[in-house]
C-alpha cells in the first residue's frame, strides 16, 4: 500500500462518516438504533424519549410475578391516558433493556400484548408517551430459568 492509496482511503472514510452525521433523523417511528442497542435502561430511555418517565397509575402493566421460563414471559400493557403516541417496554437487567416499542396510530387502542425474554429476575417497566409527556409503570418479574442462555 503506498501513500496515495492510504490518503484516498482516509478521504473516503471521512466522507462516509460525514454522511452518517448529516443524515437527517428519520421519522420518530423508525427503528431507533441508539435506544435498542443501549446497554442500560437510563440511556435507552434517554435515546427513545429524551429523559425518564413519571410513574403513573394510569399505565397498566400486566406481568407475571414469577416467570418459570425467562425465554417466554407474557406481558400486556394498556393505559387509559388520552392522546397516546407510543408504548415501550424496558427490561432493566437485560443486555439491551429496550424490548419493544409500539406506535399508537389514531383509532388503535393502547393495549398491547407480547412475549419477551429476560435473563434474570428484574424490573419490567412500561413507558407510555401521551400528550407529550411520558408515564411509566414498573413491576418485578422473578425468573427461575433465564432466557438468554443456549
Amino acid at each position: 500500500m503506498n501513500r496515495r492509496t492510504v490518503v484516498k482511503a482516509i478521504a473516503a472514510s471521512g466522507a462516509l462518516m460525514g454522511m452518517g452525521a448529516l443524515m437527517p433523523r428519520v421519522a420518530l417511528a423508525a427503528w431507533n438504533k441508539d435506544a435498542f442497542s443501549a446497554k442500560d435502561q437510563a440511556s435507552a430511555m434517554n435515546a427513545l424519549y429524551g429523559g425518564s418517565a413519571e410513574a403513573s397509575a394510569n399505565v397498566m402493566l400486566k406481568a407475571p410475578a414469577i416467570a418459570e421460563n425467562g425465554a417466554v414471559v407474557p406481558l400486556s400493557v394498556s393505559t387509559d391516558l388520552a392522546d397516546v403516541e407510543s408504548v415501550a417496554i424496558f427490561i432493566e437487567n437485560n443486555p439491551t433493556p429496550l424490548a419493544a416499542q409500539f406506535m399508537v396510530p389514531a383509532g388503535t387502542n393502547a393495549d398491547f400484548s407480547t412475549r419477551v425474554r429476560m435473563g434474570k429476575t428484574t424490573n419490567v417497566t412500561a413507558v407510555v408517551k401521551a400528550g407529550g409527556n411520558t408515564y411509566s409503570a414498573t413491576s418485578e418479574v422473578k425468573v427461575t430459568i433465564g432466557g438468554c442462555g443456549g
Partner: protein
Amino acid sequence: MAIFRVKAKARKGSTDVKMMAKHEMETGQRKGKDGNLIPAKFLDTVTVSHGGKVVFEANLGTAVSKNPYLAFSFEGGAKGENLDIAWTENSGASGTESGDIK
C-alpha cells in the same frame, strides 16, 4: 413464505388482532456449537394496515421472544376484510403478507 399467523376478529365495531410470527429472533448473544457467537437476526419492524391505514406499528428488539406474539386491537374493521402486514428483519430482509378478519 408467510411467517405470520393472524387471528383477527371483528367485534362491536372494533377488531382484535392476535398474530404470531415464525421466527427464531436470534439475539446475537448465543454461542453456536463451534463456540462462536451466532449473529443477531430478528424482526425489527412489523406494520399492520387495514384499508390503507396503519393500525399497528411495532419496533422490536432482541428481547422479544422467539416466535414473537403480538396482540392489539383497533377501531373499525369488518368480517371478510383484509389486513396487510409488512415486516422487516435487521438483516435487511422484508416481506408483506395478508390476513383476514373473521
